[in-house]
């Protein structure tokens, strides 16, 4: 039992929780959060793998940095898309009313 193993397992569970959430949840924001949790689980597996040896593995760290930027770009795009959908849905029913 080592910390690598703990985080490998925790990462797998997180990934699965994200996948499950994506399949079961309906609200777009929740689904987007689920995908982010799935991503965090994947990154956790990668970083736990990087932490195995004497020195941590810089290649995996670099891959995760790339993955994080990809994740945040996609999240931002998805959220804006979700907002646009709800705006156009409510726009069909009544004139759009700025919230807040």
């Amino acid at each position: 039992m080592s910390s690598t193993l703990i985080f490998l397992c925790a990462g797998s569970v997180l990934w699965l929780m994200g996948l499950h959430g994506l399949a079961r949840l309906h609200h777009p924001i929740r689904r987007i959060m689920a995908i982010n949790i799935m991503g965090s689980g994947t990154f956790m597996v990668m970083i736990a793998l990087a932490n195995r040896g004497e020195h941590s593995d810089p290649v995996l760290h670099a891959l995760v940095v790339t993955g994080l930027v990809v994740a945040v770009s996609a999240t931002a795009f998805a959220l804006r898309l979700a907002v646009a959908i709800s705006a156009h849905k409510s726009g069909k029913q009544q004139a759009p009313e700025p919230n807040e």
Partner: protein
Amino acid sequence: MLSLELLFDITLSVLLLILAGTALHVRHLYTGIVLFVAFGLLLAITWARLGAPDLALAEAAIGAGLTGVLLLAALARIGPEPPPRRPPARALSAGVLGVLVLILLIRAVLPLEQGPQPLPGLVSAHLDTSGVSHPVTAVLLNFRAWDTLLELVVLLLAVLGVRQLQPAGYKQAHAWTLLRAWSRILAPLSVIIAGYLLWRGSHAPGGAFQAGALLAAGIVLLRLAGLLPVLRWDDWPMRALVLMGIVVFLGIAAAGAWLGSGWLNYPPQWSGNLILLIEVAATLSIAASLSLLVIGEREELGT
């Protein structure tokens, strides 16, 4: 028995799992988002614990900070809606399937506690010729620079994608005086820290992405406080900023291919300076793109 370190690790992972679960399934969406931000911060601590300070910085800035702002902004405009409940039979079957997949996953990761790791050795062997002394930066901007270049294109595509959306009718709230005063102090600080992170990236944890994200956070804050004018894609300096990173990167790659040494192959005596140049351009591009993603509106973006 259990050492203190293991106890800490176990507590951390259990907390993460609980936070993730409640963030997804809690009744109020707002609570879920707050918990999700907390999850991101705890994740940053986990990365630091696992010896990845670069990622801890990136996660805190990008994962927790910007994603949190994005989620809350989206919630304000979409509004919560009660999710319809699924019949319990399907929940049960999903649960059984989940446990099965989990067993497969755990069986697959168990042997990974030890494994061959040829790359870290190679990285440190070639670190001297890479032009920087921090291994993660060396991988990002030299050994696997092509990934990084494409990743900048991903960011650009997200900006372009948001640009295709038609206006959603959204008015920015009026900012209070205190917020304005506080952002006047914070924004310069974020610029200084971003510059420091960028400079530090060549020899220690830090680098273009962390710096860009921090810079973007400063810009977003100023914009929300109403201290910055609207960010328009239509202004050519904005477009130039967004595209600069890719142009500089591609330019250096193509010049290398043209002048002899090869695609993305930096001449050894210049590699340090070239990497710095790319990093500065990339930082500005990332900051501009992320700010457009978070606060750019179609009315402001489009024609």
